[in-house]
């Protein structure tokens, strides 16, 4: 009993929608209708990477229309009956569209005593689930349950639906893979109008822009001492119209009657310009977050508060700072062996103990080594190390730990994992893998362990029958390797200890007997 994914899904996540210009609701006001539809889409947007933009066109991805009885598709409505609406799975043309039975008594703001009316919001949230690719679910209480259930006032997206949409489109992006957009008090873009037909350009006179960090809109917030600019869209536009929405700054004083109190402890809101550890903090009105390539705040080596981003950092109150101890297993970047090496999304990932480095086109990312679990949070909390990692031809990321395989789609653990190695035809007695790779020479996948290696059939999901074979095939690397992978140059590299070999795929032997030092070549030490 769980959600069902139909199969088709949108290839892009920035979807457009519109209320049909032809088939509008005959008993509802269009503005109220569009507000309810927008809120229904926002339910799915809040749980996934999807964004929805209303457009004034019948070519939108999702076109919502109200129709009666037969209406040019194979699913006629039944008047004021049991069938309320239907929607089409993602696709071009009619794909994604949602049709509502205009004979029903639709309610924009249903009250508890409305017996025969139907909540447009409740049905719209369900139908948009179809528009995004979800089938019906047999879980009672789930949005995708086919029978009408209305919506509770303090509505929260049920677990089953959340799992369904997140499996298809991934959860709302966390800042691991992309940065959070920041808002700055910049001068608003001055509009210049260009008349293309007569090729004359008329420029409007530029209004002097004065940034008020006091109450900029007294008519809207009479008792507000300060208001953010520009305002981010409020998460609950119709429930709390007055309250601005700060994406992730829960510790802000949100009562509207007192002047904003600045939290001195939070690194992004220091009262005066200070320079700490070589980083200068400018005054923070309005609250602007400095831009960091990957981590929303600077990484201070040997500072335990970096391990827990939720815990504020105390630069000034040195007495309060816990004594800094370097975690015992944190490897030295320039003097270590590697547990696993893999090319993932075109970037080099090197794993050692609980940590990993990430090396892109411009060299090592700052802020590393970082805990592996901060990137793949579904790995076990008591993780000590990983044994092998590789990116499969289907772009899934396989992480082997002991006798189990964890399979990720980006950083989302796929349902049903981890799976034991025997599921893939590997012997029960096998304690762990040493390495895994897709060998560019023939495109096959190979697993290595001790003195043996296996060829793995990605289609069948199991190793071939005439394996394992002896590691001697890979002349020069010996047994018990640490890792192997194929770099962008198409060459294969075997790792053991603090060294590595470049491997000649044609001659099936290492290019030179003596291994080279990994730290200088791969880590740039």
């Amino acid at each position, binding site marked *: 009993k769980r959600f069902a994914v139909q199969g088709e899904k949108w290839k892009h996540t920035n979807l457009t929608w519109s209320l049909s210009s032809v088939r509008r609701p005959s008993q509802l006001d269009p503005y109220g209708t569009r507000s309810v539809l927008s809120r229904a889409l926002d339910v799915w947007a809040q749980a996934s990477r999807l964004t929805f933009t209303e457009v004034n066109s019948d070519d939108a991805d999702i076109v919502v229309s109200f129709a009666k009885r037969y209406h040019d598709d194979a699913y006629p409505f039944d008047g004021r009956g*049991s069938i309320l609406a239907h929607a089409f799975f993602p696709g071009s043309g009619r794909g994604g569209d949602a049709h509502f039975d205009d004979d029903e008594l639709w309610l924009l703001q249903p009250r508890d005593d409305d017996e025969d009316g*139907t909540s447009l919001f409740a049905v719209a949230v*369900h139908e948009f689930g179809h528009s995004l690719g979800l*089938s*019906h679910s047999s879980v009672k209480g789930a949005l995708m349950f086919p*029978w009408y259930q209305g919506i509770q006032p303090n509505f929260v997206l049920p677990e089953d639906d959340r799992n369904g949409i997140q499996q298809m489109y991934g959860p709302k992006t966390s800042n691991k893979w992309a940065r959070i957009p920041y808002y700055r008090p910049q001068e608003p873009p001055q509009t210049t109008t260009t008349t293309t037909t007569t090729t004359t350009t008329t420029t409007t006179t530029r209004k002097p822009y004065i940034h008020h960090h006091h109450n900029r809109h007294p008519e809207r917030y009479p008792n507000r001492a300060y208001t953010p600019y520009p305002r981010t869209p409020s998460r609950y536009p119709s429930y709390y119209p007055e309250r601005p929405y700060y994406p992730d700054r829960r510790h802000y004083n949100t009562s509207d009657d007192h002047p904003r109190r600045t939290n001195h402890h939070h690194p992004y809101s220091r009262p005066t310009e200070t320079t700490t550890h070589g980083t200068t903090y400018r005054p923070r009105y309005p609250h602007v977050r400095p831009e960091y390539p990957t981590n929303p705040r600077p990484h201070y080596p040997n500072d335990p508060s970096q391990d827990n981003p939720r815990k504020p950092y105390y630069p000034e109150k040195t007495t309060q700072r816990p004594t800094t101890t370097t975690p015992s297993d944190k490897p030295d970047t320039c003097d270590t062996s590697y547990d696993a090496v893999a090319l993932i999304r075109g970037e080099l990932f090197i794993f050692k103990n609980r940590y990993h480095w990430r090396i892109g086109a411009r060299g090592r990312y700052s802020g590393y080594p970082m805990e592996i679990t901060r990137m793949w949070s579904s790995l076990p909390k008591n993780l000590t190390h990983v044994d092998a990692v590789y990116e499969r031809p289907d772009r899934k990321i396989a992480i082997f730990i002991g006798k189990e395989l964890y399979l990720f789609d980006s950083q989302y653990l796929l349902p049903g994992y981890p799976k034991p190695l025997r599921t893939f035809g590997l012997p029960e007695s096998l304690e762990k893998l040493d390495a895994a790779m897709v060998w560019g020479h023939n495109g096959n996948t190979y697993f290595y362990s001790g003195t043996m290696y296996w060829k793995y059939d990605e289609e069948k999901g199991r190793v071939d029958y005439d394996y394992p074979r002896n590691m001697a095939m890979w002349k020069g690397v010996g047994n018990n390797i640490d890792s192997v992978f194929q770099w962008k140059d198409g060459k294969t590299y075997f790792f053991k200890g603090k060294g590595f070999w470049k491997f000649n795929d044609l001659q099936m032997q290492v290019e030179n007997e003596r291994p080279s030092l990994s730290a200088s070549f791969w880590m740039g030490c």
Partner: protein
Amino acid sequence: APTRSRPTRSAHHESARGYLETFGYLKKGRPEVGNLLLVDSEQAYEDDFRIAIKTLQEFGGIPVTGEIDEATKALMKQKRCGRPDREEDEEQHGHRR
């Protein structure tokens, strides 16, 4: 000998069949002549119909009896989405994709 014929089905049975076909629990179109089934497929049809009723009851979260009982009738009257609960391609794969 004349083929054995069954009395025509009850109205409940017919409306239930339409419902089951509409929402993907029962294949559309039965080898019928008017309202009388061809003898050799009658048993098969009975089985399919009973399985379809059970599947609907399970999906709807009501007691699984295989009969068109009161709970099943109430479920069939309840407001709902017009899409099938079991999509066509699930028929081929034998499971919900």
